[in-house]
Structure formats: C-alpha cells, structure tokens
C-alpha cells in the first residue's frame, strides 16, 4: 500500500542556482498527484528530492523536511534504503541494454543480492502484468534485451522494473513525453490502475494528462509552488492569477 508524503520548507540548489524555494505540501496516499509548470520551474528537481536522487549530482544540495509515511528521509535513512521504497520512472525509457527483459524487471532485487529463483519468477510475472506488458513479452523474457523493445514497451518495462521492488511511492518524471499518443494512453491507463495501490507523483508538461490521471495537481513556477489543490479546482477555478494564465495558455 502507498503512504503519504509530507514536505515542509524544502529548498534545493544546483551550485548557486536556487531551484526550489520553500516548498510545503501534503501528498495524500494511494492517489495520483500531478505537477505541472513550464520548463525549468523546478518540478523535476522536486520529485528528485523526494527519493534523494537530487543529491547524486555533486553540485546539488537540499534542505528541509520530507516525510514519506512516518519516516523523515533526510534524517532517518540512507539514500539507498529510501530509493528502494520509492520507485522512479524517468523521462526517457532507460532499460539496461545488457540485460534480458526478465533481468531488467528482476534487476532491483538481483542487484541487491536477492537470489531465490521461484520468488523472482513470480515477481517478474506479477510486475509485467501490472505494467500491462506481460502478454507482449512473455515468450522472449530471457531471449531478448530490454533495449530491443519499442519506446512505449521500454517505458512499461521500466515501470515494471520499478514495481518489482514493491515500492510505496512511484515517482514519474514526464513518463510519456518521449512516447507516441497510443503508448501515452497505455501509460495513463496504467497510472489509473496503479494509483489504488501506490502513491503516484507524476511530473507532466501535458495539462490534459494531469486532468485525466490525477486527483490533485500542483503548479510550479520559477522554483515556487504557486498552487496545490484538487485537479478539478485548479483547472476550473484556480485561485492564483498566474495559475490561470498558465492553464489558459497565456504563457508557458
């Protein structure tokens, strides 16, 4: 089951650039939350702070409190441990090209020393079914490389890979922006089904996508969270003038 995320006064920097300014918000569990905003507004940095991926860049720094479930991830845990509980799907599909489809899905467990074949088989099948890829790849699981699949299939493989370690939260950084409309709608269907079991945070450039999949939506602008409320409200009665301008297409 998913857990909620509580963010208080989160600030982030790349070198001297202040990319996130005093972000405070509550993401409810078992729901999809969309983050929208123009390029460079800090929404990607924000999700990368939620699993401490931000700090893999040597020039990056973050302060503030992020509580996932009841744990303060910047104080109570190591980044490695945190990332096992918070899955991430990236903008460009990034399956491991040297691994088979099977090994890609099992990689999170295998690379952490998990060896039980029977359990691995079950996890791989369950994850691929969850990401709606099982039927397309079940005959080539160990024969084909993850990189041999089409772009949309690769992205669903990456989702399966993230689900295989049984995370509580799934972070998605523009997961469909490199895909065609058919693949995009498959990914959206997937998010719709997965949000009953996981807490999903999805960064997107596509406002229709936010409207279709998310219960709540946050609007970022120049490193600040301008507005965060239910998707319905933000698209029909935004409180802030800047949100309204962005949503109606007056800029961005």
């Amino acid at each position, binding site marked *: 089951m998913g857990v909620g995320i509580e963010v208080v006064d989160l600030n982030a920097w790349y070198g001297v650039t202040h990319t996130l300014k005093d972000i405070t918000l509550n993401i409810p569990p078992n729901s999809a939350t969309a983050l929208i905003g123009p390029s460079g507004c800090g929404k990607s940095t924000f999700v990368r702070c939620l699993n401490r991926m931000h700090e893999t860049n040597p020039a990056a720094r973050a302060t503030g409190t992020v509580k996932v479930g009841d744990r303060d991830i910047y104080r109570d845990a190591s980044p490695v441990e945190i990332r096992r509980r918070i899955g991430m799907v*990236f903008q460009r599909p990034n399956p491991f*090209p040297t691994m088979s489809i099977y090994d890609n899905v099992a990689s999170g467990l295998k*690379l952490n020393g998990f060896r039980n074949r029977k359990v691995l088989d079950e996890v791989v099948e369950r994850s691929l079914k969850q990401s709606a890829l099982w039927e397309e790849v079940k005959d080539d699981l160990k024969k084909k490389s993850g990189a*041999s699949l089409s772009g949309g299939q690769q992205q669903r493989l990456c989702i399966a890979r993230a689900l295989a370690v049984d995370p509580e939260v799934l972070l998605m950084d523009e997961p469909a922006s490199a895909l065609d409309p058919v693949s995009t709608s498959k990914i959206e269907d997937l998010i719709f089904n997965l949000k009953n079991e996981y807490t999903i945070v999805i960064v997107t450039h596509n406002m229709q996508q936010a409207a279709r999949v998310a219960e709540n939506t946050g609007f970022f602008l120049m490193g600040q969270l301008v507005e965060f409320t239910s998707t319905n409200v933000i698209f029909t009665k935004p409180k802030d003038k800047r949100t309204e301008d962005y949503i109606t297409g007056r800029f961005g």
Partner: protein
Amino acid sequence: MTQIRPSRSNASIRQATNHIVTAISILSTIVVLVPLIAILFYLIYKGASSLNLAFFTHTPKPVGESGGGMANSIVGSSLVLLVASLMGIPIGIAGGVYLSEYGSGTWMGAIIRFTADVLNGVPSIVMGIAGYALIVVHQHHFSALAGGVTLSIMMIPTVTRTTEEMLRTVPNSLREAAYGLGVPRWRTVLSISLRSAAPGIITGCMLAFARVAGETAPLLFTAFGSNFWPHSLNEPIAALPLQIFVYALSPYDEWHRLAWAGSLVLITLIMLSVGLVRYVTSRGQLKGGM
C-alpha cells in the same frame, strides 16, 4: 537571395563527392591492411618451413648442433604475459573506474590521468631499465616475475585510459536507473557501468596485451632469457621476443630461420589469444542488446 534549394548540378556534385570520399576510405583501409597481410605472408614464407614438432617441444640446441626448438620460449612468454595480465588488467581497470566514476573533476583524478598519459609515452627500453633498477637490483637476479611486473606497468596506462573512456560512454540515465532501484553505488559500477562498457574495455585490454606480448627491450633487463625449461617464476626465463632477438643477431643461417619461425609463432599466438578472448566474451549475447 542566395540559392538554398538544391539544384540539379548541385546534386551531381554531391554524388561525386560521395563517391570520392567512399573511394578514399576504402583505399585507406587497404593501405592499413596491406602491411599487416604482407608481414604475415612474409613470415609464413620465411618461417613456416622451419616449423616442426621439435620447434614446439624442444629447447634450443647449443651452437653447432642442428635442430632444437623454442618450446621453453613459448612457455616462458605465456608465463610472463600471464603475470603481466593478472597484474596489469585489474589495476588498470580499477584505475579507469576511479577516473570515470569517482575521481572525475578532482585534482587526484587529473594527476592520475596525466601520469597515465606520460607513462604511456615512456620508451619501452626505459621501462626495462626501471624494472631492472626497481626489481632486479633488489632481488639480485633476473626473473620471470620482474619481466611480468615490468610489462604489467606498460599495460596499466592503456587499460586505465580505455576503461575511463569506455565508462564515459555509458549514459548517466543507466546509473540513475540503478540508483532509483536502491542499488548501492559500488554495485552500480560493477553490474551496470562496467558491464555496459565491457566490450570496449575488453578491446583495450587486448590492445595492451598484444602490445606488450611483442616487447623485447623491457625483458632484456628483467626476464633476461634462458635456454632451459622454466622451473619457477623467480628465475631468468625465456621469452619469444628475446629468443627472436638473440637468434636474429646471430651469424648462423639456421638460427636466422628459427628467428623467422619464432616470429611467425609469436604473431599467430597473439592473434589466437585475441580471437579466443573475443569469441568467449561475445557468447551469450541477447537479441537487440549491447
């Protein structure tokens, strides 16, 4: 206004340019391959007739006696190269991993990279003298070990720099994918970065191996050479390049022929070992993978 749209005459010029460049690259390939093939055929022509069972099973005969072989040199070369590879390849790869994954952008990394590049340019005879001064003088005798260590030091910079370059071609998105799954950094380096860069790193190791396999100068002062079967790594040992060197400089026709045969064997062994490594490491590849 300047004409931007391609005209018909423009197209034919482009086509001609295409043909010329293609011809130049084919010609260059031939120019590169001809000396290699010529050397190989010349060695076969000069050396093949002296190859017989005795060449591969016997040690050299003293001056004046005919027959004898280079069996001890073949074994000796293999041992020296084994020592060199066992030492040079792991250290070289570890150095490359440091430069690319941990030390990039640090002072330490810059110093190591510079040192490796300088080491790569040191003449092999200087490496031989260094091996002599650092190992042989302290041990008070020549040895296979001294030869192997000296060759390994020649392998390290090549292996380090190719490992670094190959690791840099691994997209960062793959490392992030592993981090995102909660895989620790050391494991990501081993199972993702090194694994993805493996084909290039293997090529680098093979280049370094092939280069030192034919080295004579560094062995003159370290392995020294011998006319007998090796009994341990801690005594002077024969090596094919050394034996070829000695025989080629001798005044005897039969020794000249043996030198040719030795050269043929040396180049064949290098090709065989490179081919074998390529074959073994290319097995089990996946469809559409790397």
